[in-house]
């Protein structure tokens, strides 16, 4: 099996899939272009205009690549001006397609890569997959099947996850073609089988016919002629149904070639003639000449050189015109036996030379291509290595930066924590100092108060000794007077009266001293203490003034919790004593009432008598009343005097 027809189909397959979408819209593209131009003239909005320019680029790509490039450039300018990354990436990609269609694969690849970079930045995953697909095609065109495969697989991964079955099949077809180029026939067959299943399921007959032809080609490479013939016949069936002339012509031509190789010239001629007929109808010039070349080969094999010669000469013209250089050696080779049969040695020599020369040229070209491919591979690998090195450098730098950032962050945190530590230390010291200061102040106050207390205690001790001595002396005086009175039987009334007066006065002094000692011995005087003291006093007064009725009432509400300081207790007692004394001595009262009451946090003491009273306005306050008033003031109490002919009422509130 000659591999050249196969190569042609490989080429056909790629184009058929990549441009299937373009072909589908090209029928309506002129109408769309017109409507877009009308819209462009109407619109003043930059966003809308940019979008229209982008659309015009795409639709013009199937009509006029020059116009497409003009609009593409405008769309790119607008997209850059608007900073619309999505539109910019799309436009660059569309312009890349235009260059692809023009056969300028280098520029196309550059544009695709630029668009890919933008789409990666904006994370447009669908766009990235589309560009991977396109880059796969470009790299296949540039005879870099390995790289092409990588991009196709990336695209396939995305479309499979996106469940875009139609595109998945297109990508799989292209992968199969690349695999065929890489001579991985089994894997290629796997992909073609998947394609066949999909196109059958979706009733896409024309595509099915094409894939069947490709599968047949792979089978031929695997020398499975029977299966190849089977698939080609199946392809013919399918193509006939949908009138897919291109596929039909190829299928018949390939069948003819197979039978030609099998020396079954009759069948071969039959299929080739059918192929010629179809290709003539479909105006497929190059393909038609290929079929004719095969037919010429059959004629030569059958010894019908006269029939083969005009076909071959026509072949030369068409192949040279169409630039199908690779077919020419076969034509020259077939012309040699034709001229040999006609006994034209010069022509034989001419075409032999031509054949050798073109073979050499082709070999040279092939060598150049291989060298170029190797060079490209070398350059690619070199670039990849450089990229890898750069990436390593970048990674190292990034790592260094990360480390530095981490260090800076750590130092920052450390600084913060150290500040906190400093603040805490300061606070600790401050707290300590504050506490020491407070403690010092308290201790100082304590020392002062303790000293004062000691002094007062000493003073009180001296006072107590003095009081004891005075008490003893007073008792001695009373005793001496009593001895004088009763021991010497003094009859002089004046002396007796004087002695009694001194004795009574001294006794009063002793009582007063005892009262004070009583108060001083108590740290505080409770209401109960005061009650007892007053009761004692009233009892004594009652003995001294038997005609007077005494009443002492204590309010039951009065709380036992009421306590007075010694001064307060002493002064209250003295006021009561003075009031009772006045009632007996001056008011000649027959009834004296002493009441203790507790009202609203106030303790009230009232002394009432039914004596003759006194006129507060006229009577000058004697020592007794003044003394009561002063004592009340000393303890912060208020004292009131109410007196009339019916009696006197003294009220003390504390």
């Amino acid at each position, binding site marked *: 099996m000659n591999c050249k027809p196969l190569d042609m189909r490989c080429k056909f397959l790629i184009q058929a899939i990549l441009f299937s979408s373009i072909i589908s819209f090209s029928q309506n593209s002129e109408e769309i272009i017109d409507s877009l131009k009308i819209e462009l003239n109407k619109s003043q909005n930059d966003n809308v205009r940019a979008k229209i320019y982008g659309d015009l680029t795409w639709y013009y790509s199937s009509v006029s690549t020059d116009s497409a490039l003009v609009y593409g450039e405008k769309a790119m300018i607008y997209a850059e001006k608007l900073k619309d990354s999505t539109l910019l990436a799309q436009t660059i990609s569309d312009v890349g397609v235009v260059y692809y269609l023009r056969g300028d694969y280098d520029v196309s690849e550059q544009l695709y890569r630029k668009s890919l970079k933008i789409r990666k930045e904006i994370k447009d995953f669908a766009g990235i997959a589309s560009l991977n697909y396109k880059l796969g095609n470009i790299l296949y065109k540039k005879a870099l099947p390995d790289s092409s495969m990588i991009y196709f697989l990336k695209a396939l991964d995305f479309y499979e996850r996106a469940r875009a079955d139609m595109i998945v099949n297109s990508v799989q077809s292209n992968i199969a073609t690349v695999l065929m180029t890489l001579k991985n026939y089994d894997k290629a067959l796997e992909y073609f089988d998947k394609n066949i299943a999909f196109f059958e399921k979706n009733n896409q007959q024309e595509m099915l016919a094409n894939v069947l032809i490709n599968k047949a080609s792979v089978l031929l490479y695997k020398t499975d002629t029977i299966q190849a013939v089977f698939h080609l016949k199946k392809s013919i069936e399918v193509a006939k149904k949908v009138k897919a002339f291109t596929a039909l012509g190829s299928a018949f031509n390939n069948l003819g070639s197979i039978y030609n190789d099998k020396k079954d010239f009759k069948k071969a001629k039959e299929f080739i003639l059918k192929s010629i007929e179809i290709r003539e109808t479909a105006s497929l010039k190059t393909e038609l000449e290929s079929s004719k070349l095969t037919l010429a080969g059959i004629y030569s094999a059958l010894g019908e050189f006269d029939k083969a010669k005009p076909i071959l000469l026509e072949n030369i013209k068409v192949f040279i015109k169409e630039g199908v250089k690779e077919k020419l050696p076969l034509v020259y080779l077939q012309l040699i036996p034709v001229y040999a049969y006609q006994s034209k040695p010069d022509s034989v020599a001419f075409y032999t030379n031509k054949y050798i020369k073109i073979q050499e040229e082709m070999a040279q070209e092939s060598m150049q291509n291989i060298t170029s491919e190797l060079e490209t591979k070398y350059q690619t690998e070199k670039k990849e290595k450089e990229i890898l090195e750069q990436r390593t450098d970048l990674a190292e730098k990034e790592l260094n930066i990360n*480390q530095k950032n*981490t*260090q800076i*962050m*750590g*130092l920052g*945190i*450390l600084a913060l*924590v*150290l500040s*906190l*530590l400093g603040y*805490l*230390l300061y*606070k*600790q010291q401050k*707290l*300590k100092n504050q*506490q020491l200061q*407070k*403690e010092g102040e*308290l*201790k100082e*106050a*304590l020392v002062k*108060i*303790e000293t*004062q*207390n000691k002094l*007062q*205690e000493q*003073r*009180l001790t001296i*006072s107590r000794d*003095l*009081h004891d001595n*005075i008490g003893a002396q007073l008792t001695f*005086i009373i005793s001496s007077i009593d001895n004088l009175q009763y021991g010497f039987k003094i009859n*002089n009334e*004046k*002396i007796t009266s*004087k*002695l009694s*007066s*001194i004795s009574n*006065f*001294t006794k*009063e*002094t002793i009582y*007063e*001293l005892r009262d*004070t000692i009583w*108060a*001083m011995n108590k*740290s*505080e005087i409770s209401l109960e203490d005061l009650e007892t003291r007053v009761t004692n006093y009233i009892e004594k007064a009652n003995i001294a003034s038997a005609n007077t009725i005494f009443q002492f009432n204590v309010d039951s509400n009065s709380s036992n919790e009421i306590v007075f*300081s*010694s*001064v307060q207790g*002493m002064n209250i007692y003295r006021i009561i004593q003075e009031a009772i004394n006045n009632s007996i001595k001056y008011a000649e009262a027959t009834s004296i009432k002493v009441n203790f009451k507790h009202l609203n946090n106030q303790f009230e003491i009232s002394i009432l008598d039914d004596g003759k009273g006194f006129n507060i306005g006229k009577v000058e306050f004697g020592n007794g009343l003044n003394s009561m008033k002063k004592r009340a003031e000393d303890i912060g109490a208020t004292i009131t005097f109410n007196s009339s002919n019916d009696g006197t009422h003294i009220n003390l509130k504390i």
Partner: protein
Amino acid sequence: MISFLITYLPFLLVLIVSALCLVLVLDINKIKNKGLLRLSRLNAFLSFQLLKNKRLSQNIILSEHIEKVLFKRFLKINTEILSLQKIIFEL
């Protein structure tokens, strides 16, 4: 390893200093509580002394007062005794 240590040394120091901070915070609390306890004891003792002082002052007031009274009364007793002597001598 050394690079790793250098990179993460500040964090190690942060950990150590944080631990110190924690210790310090605990210490501050301890000082605060201890100080409060000591101050409250001193305050209680001072209050007691003040109360004692108040009572002593009251007693001093009473003592001073009774001393004045006694002085007056002794004066009067003296006068009375003198007048008694005069009566006796006049007889």
